[in-house]
């Protein structure tokens, strides 16, 4: 293939819409042609930047109260009410009747989810890891102390310097190259949602910097508050990949684990045990995405 033929296929190539045969032909060409490689890089950065911008914009996340109202539609009773009122459902929701109904449903959901969650933890052997089953079992090692403090204390309300892109993050901290960051954000959001068993939306997503250390910072909103997931370069710090550190710092629970050369933090207002369970639940997903990113 020549450059012209390859460039005509850039869009479907980046969107992963080509046949394996065409994909191989383009990969072969790009491996030998730096100009085409650079153009593909431009396209990929363009797409990633756009995805990140939308994902980080809170206007495009639903109000948790709206999601709760929507869930109430799964009640046969509320569906009948909807049929009666048609598109004037807001009025119906505004009534005292709906408030009482939602409260009942909310209590029901909360009770079911919480009891199911507790049961899963206590009976499912795969949901706990021996090294981290007890929150106090793995204290934060000295080598990670500074990073943990940064993750918890300095990211509150995220008053750190915001960085706009991979490029800027890498400029601050050359090892902090978080390729595929949108994929990481969405995968983490979905994994957290699966763990907490109710809707979780991305409130913000950005890079930020503290003391020359760049962090990818994903802030998730759930009905019980906010959960921060931070990823940063682990540098030369050594840590057992199966261990999850956890502790409480100034009222925030933080769990921390290492994946290859990255360190991941889960910070929330949940109890230490619940936060650890959440971190354990999302660990396979986070590792998988970081692993894929590192292979790009």
């Amino acid at each position, binding site marked *: 293939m020549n450059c012209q033929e390859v460039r005509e296929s850039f869009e479907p190539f980046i969107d992963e819409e080509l046949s394996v045969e065409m994909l191989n032909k383009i990969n072969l060409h790009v491996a030998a042609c730096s100009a085409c490689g650079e153009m593909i890089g431009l396209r990929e950065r363009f797409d990633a930047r756009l995805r990140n911008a939308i994902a980080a914009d809170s206007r495009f996340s639903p109000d948790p109260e709206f999601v709760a109202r929507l869930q109430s*539609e799964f009640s046969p009773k509320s569906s009948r009410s909807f049929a009666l009122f048609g598109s004037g459902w807001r009025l119906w929701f505004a009534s005292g009747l709906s408030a009482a109904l939602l409260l009942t449903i909310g209590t029901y959901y909360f009770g079911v989810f919480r009891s199911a969650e507790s049961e899963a933890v206590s009976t499912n052997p795969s949901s706990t890891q021996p090294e981290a089953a007890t929150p106090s079992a793995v204290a934060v090692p000295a080598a990670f102390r500074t990073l943990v403090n940064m993750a918890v204390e300095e990211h509150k309300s995220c008053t750190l310097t915001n960085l706009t892109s991979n490029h800027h993050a890498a400029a601050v901290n050359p090892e902090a190259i978080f390729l595929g960051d949108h994929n990481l954000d969405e995968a983490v959001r979905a994994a957290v949602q699966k763990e907490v068993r109710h809707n979780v939306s991305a409130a913000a997503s950005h890079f930020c910097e503290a003391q020359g250390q760049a962090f990818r910072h994903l802030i998730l909103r759930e009905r019980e508050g906010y959960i921060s997931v931070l990823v940063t370069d682990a540098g030369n710090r050594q840590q057992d990949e199966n261990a999850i550190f956890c502790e409480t710092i100034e009222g925030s629970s933080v769990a921390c684990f290492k994946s290859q050369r990255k360190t991941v933090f889960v910070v929330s207002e949940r109890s230490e045990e619940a936060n650890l369970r959440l971190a354990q639940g999302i660990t396979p997903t986070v590792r998988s995405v970081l692993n894929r990113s590192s292979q790009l």
Partner: protein
Amino acid sequence: MGFGSPTNPDGLDFEAELLPFIGDLYRMARWLTRDPEKAEELVHDAVILGIKGFHTYRATSSLKSWMFTIIYRLNIRQNQKKKLPIADDPDELLINQLAYEPDIPKHLTDEEIIAALERLPVSLSELVMLVNVEGFTYAEAATILQIPIGTVMSRLYRARQRLRVELEDAALNAGFLERAEVTP
């Protein structure tokens, strides 16, 4: 698990299947309506239709794609009711003359990037949202929008070109770029 959620003949529970991408549905509805209240109403109406029609859903296509199709059809129906014209692309000729591939200017904020996308005709920006942001394949996007797959590809190409031009204009206006930098 919802206690009143319908199941389809494959045994899938609508609520359990829907919940993971409620946020995606809202994002698309918000994009289409440009209004949070209308977006909520659109998602709500789509979910109600989904509940009623879930017995016809088969897992041969993704539920996300199925629900997005409902969202689009509802939105078109509502626009027709209000006699709002659906915007089209007036600058096709200009876009087709562009031969270079500028990068996104680095100093632009997320807000400026989204504003540039909002300036695109809906027929173009909705494809960027479906393919770039929501991750649908060309075939799924074609089904959702009820247009041929070739049209998906050509519109998407034009949308991305147009967006780059909008972003460059924004960067030039903000003083982040000089004219000479963008001359092919």
